[in-house]
């Protein structure tokens, strides 16, 4: 939750868009710089690491695929948290946050699906299988697109935000299904190997670049999310100004 972690001390202050914009303007260059550095480090580690003895070079797809898949779920969680913020506290930034996170989530989900498909061809021998994990992620992708379409279909932004917040919360049912699909159904996709109670089963050689890439993707997401929120606020201001100008022009005429 970007806006929460930034403003634990003065959460209510952030309801003022101008204050939020100055904060974003100060934070954004740092976050963008961190993203670039982390990606450089992560990609270097990813290419420097040895190939797997079975999978060969294709194992490097993992360094993009796994973080993108994590992010696709985390983005929906951010949206669900924002939806709660919209419905419970009527926080004005929560509307903006939920709306701008949807295209980002769709993007990360698409990356996860495409890289997964590219990885599946050499490993499983097929581009796509209707396995539980793949199907549920595909459903997540469809839900992102549906939410974007819903937001586009309505003129009034605050009403759109409240109505789509309800749908976001209902759709949150899918997230645990994705997370545990590989454990409930015994399928082609491998079960979780990094976040486990008995420690990661993945070799440290692969784990290090993976974790760096995961952090890089997360920072990338928050950078893009903050930038998108700023753009959305500015866009709303522009449209408000335009409406005002049109009213003034009508009065003069």
């Amino acid at each position, binding site marked *: 939750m970007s806006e929460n972690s930034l403003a634990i001390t003065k959460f209510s202050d952030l309801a003022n868009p101008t204050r939020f914009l100055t904060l974003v303007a100060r934070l954004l260059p740092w976050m963008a710089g961190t993203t670039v550095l982390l990606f450089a480090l992560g990609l270097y580690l990813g290419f420097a690491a040895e190939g797997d003895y079975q999978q060969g070079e294709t194992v490097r797809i993992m360094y993009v695929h796994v973080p993108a898949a994590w992010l696709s779920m985390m983005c929906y969680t951010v949206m669900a948290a924002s939806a709660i913020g919209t*419905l419970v506290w009527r926080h004005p930034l929560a509307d903006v946050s939920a709306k701008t996170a949807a295209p980002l989530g769709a993007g990360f989900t698409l990356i996860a699906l495409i890289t997964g498909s590219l990885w599946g061809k050499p490993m499983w021998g097929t581009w796509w299988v209707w396995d539980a994990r793949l199907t549920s992620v595909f459903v997540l992708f*469809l839900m992102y697109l*549906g*939410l974007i379409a819903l937001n586009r*279909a309505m003129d009034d932004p605050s*009403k759109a935000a409240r*109505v789509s917040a*309800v749908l976001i919360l*209902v*759709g949150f049912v899918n997230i645990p299904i994705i997370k545990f699909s590989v454990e409930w159904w015994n399928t082609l996709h491998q079960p979780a190997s990094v976040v486990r109670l008995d420690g990661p089963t993945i070799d440290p050689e692969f784990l290090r670049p993976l974790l760096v890439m995961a952090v890089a993707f997360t920072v990338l997401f928050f950078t893009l999310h903050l930038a998108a929120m700023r753009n959305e606020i500015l866009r709303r201001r522009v449209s408000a100004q335009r409406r005002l100008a049109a009213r003034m022009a009508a009065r003069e005429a």
Partner: protein
Amino acid sequence: MIALFLRDLKLSIRAGGGALIGVLFFMTIVAVIPFGVGPDLNLLARIGPAIVWIGALLSALLGLDRLFQAEREDGSLDLLLMHETPLVLTVAVKCLAHWVGTSLPLVIASPLLGLFMNMDETAIAAVMLTLIVGSPAITFIGAVGAAVAVVLPRGGLLVSILVLPLTVPVLIFGVSATYAAVQEPAPFMPPFLILVAITLFFAALGPAAAALALRNSAE
């Protein structure tokens, strides 16, 4: 509440749109499939349960976006919102009436379509049983979409797109329970009980979320 139930039921039957069109749509979908896959009776018997389920799912969605739309247009939605009974209860009753009015005819029509698909008696009975248990879940999920559609200038298709992904679990377990009843080694009860659980879960979640959406759209 009973009055509301009867009113909705009568409206859905007499208005000429709901029940009959739903069943006709269902039959048309199922009748079109053999043209697509060819009249191979063995193949049809194998994929029959899945086709009947998909047909029922699509036709159950057909009338859903109208669940609150008509009330919105003639103003009675505002009366329902101002009523003293909890809105969740009103929505749940409306869902039940909609289910009886449109989904129950689909369930009743399904054995006939099962015969068309060359399914044996156990499969037909299993399809009927799973449909009767699973279709309320579709209605409850669809109620959320219908409540959202109230504010949309032109809802229709968008609601189906939003609702369909959420109904995937219902479809999965409905069809797998049916296949489990036909094919011997797989046990019937686990997928069937999960289907029941999904229906109960959405019976709680659906009306609550729909009521929330209606309240928010009314302001």
